[in-house]
């Protein structure tokens, strides 16, 4: 009995450590493996377009917005991750964007950083997609605390994983 209780105690202790570690790095469940499918390069979101689910208005400072991605540009509803080129345009403050699957917790990880004088800047990234209502991708616009800045977002796709 005594030795059994001791083993249990050790086990619980390791579990607690593991939970603490996961809490620190934010949870990231691995999924897959998935295969790659090309699509012709295609613009799926542009906040400079007329207001709408994949169009305007521009992103607001320190707010998150979600976009429908699947079902457009030849990307099927069953895709698990998308190859994006993320472009920002006409920022009125400096900042960064975090792209993450809709319906999941916002991560600390960013995809693109800019300064106000960057009239247009792009970075490529492979981002998993999720589902929240009709939306698949969420974008958080990080700007300085209290900022009233805005930035335009353009998302182009060249492939997906499924």
């Amino acid at each position, binding site marked *: 009995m005594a030795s059994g209780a001791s083993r249990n105690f050790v086990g619980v202790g390791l579990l607690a450590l593991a939970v603490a570690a996961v809490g620190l790095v934010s949870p990231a469940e691995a999924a897959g493996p998935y*295969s*790659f*499918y*090309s*699509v*012709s*390069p*295609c*613009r799926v979101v542009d906040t400079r377009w007329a207001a709408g689910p994949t169009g305007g208005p521009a992103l607001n400072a320190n707010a998150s917005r979600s976009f429908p991605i699947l079902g457009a540009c*030849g990307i*099927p509803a069953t895709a698990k991750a998308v*190859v994006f*080129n993320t*472009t920002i*345009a006409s920022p009125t403050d400096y900042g960064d964007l975090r792209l993450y699957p809709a319906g999941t917790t916002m991560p600390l990880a960013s995809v693109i950083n800019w300064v106000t004088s960057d*009239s*247009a*800047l*792009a*970075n*490529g990234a*492979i981002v998993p997609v999720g589902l929240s209502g009709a939306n698949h991708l969420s974008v958080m616009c990080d700007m300085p605390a209290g900022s009233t800045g805005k930035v335009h977002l*353009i998302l*182009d*796709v*060249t*492939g997906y994983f*499924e």
Partner: protein
Amino acid sequence: MSSPWPCAPAQAAAPPLCPVGQAPQNAFFDTLENPASGNWTSATLSGVNHWDLGAGTPPADIYWSGFATSGVYSFWGYNYDFVGDSAVAMTASVAVPAGARLQFSHAYGFENDPATFYDGGVLEYSTDGGSAWTDAGSLISAGAGYGGVISATYTNPLGGRNAFVGESWGYTASQLNLASLAGQNVRFRFRIGTDDAFDDYGWFVDDVRLYTCAAASSKFYTLGPCRVGDTRNPTGPSGGPALGANTTRTFPVGGLCGVPYTAKAVAINVTVVNESDYGNLRLYAAGGALPGASTINFTASKVRANNAVIPLGTGGEIGVRCDMPPGSTGQTDFLFDVTGYFE
């Protein structure tokens, strides 16, 4: 093989079999390399037969060696200086799936002068096992189409019909949208009509494929980082000159840096340098439509880089469009490095 004839002007581009990211699934595909297949037969409708030039005994005499797009054999129907109407036809019908296409490679030179098409060839299909035939020209959706009407003034049995006429200037390809024939059993035939004077090259046909397109997955293969192209290098396919404002250029990728010609897409790092105006680059599969999607944005005189996954065109090439303000006379150097490919 498939080299253009001397002094050839631009040919109709061979269309890609399927959209980017999709691959053909064949319902019928004949590279014409087996003269004993029994897949085809020739028929003389009137006058001379144009197609029986090969060495074999009928029906294998319709297979000609020496000017094929794939392998050794193709069909060759000679443009005789005699009246004739003859065809090579499939000997069995194929059930046409939904969303099917037909594509074939061909090269032709039919007797003409600047004002008149005297001889020509047509593509026809039958849905009743080869009794009644219908012209298929209206189904051509990409590649070389019919070029004009065969003169009805002379003795050509096909006079008055729209047809492949004049010169293709070497091998090209035509693609047909078979949506209107879905669910039917269909066979095709290639038919030549000639009048009573003057010969010409005639019609070479190869690689006849009836197919649908389905999404094709690929796997990732890593490569040692390698510079594929750099416009700061001496002028050449992978080198200079710099990209000019609002112009488009293609760069070879397949065959370089370990990327196979069969790769579907490449993982690259794109760099712009020495920009004399602001703008952006659009990278895409060469031969496809110019997309609305960009790959990198830049301002003047600032080195910038971005990573991207870009699909390759049928020749293993990418197209690069340099967008700058309207009327700009600017330019930018462009280099790209590959770190892996998808196949």
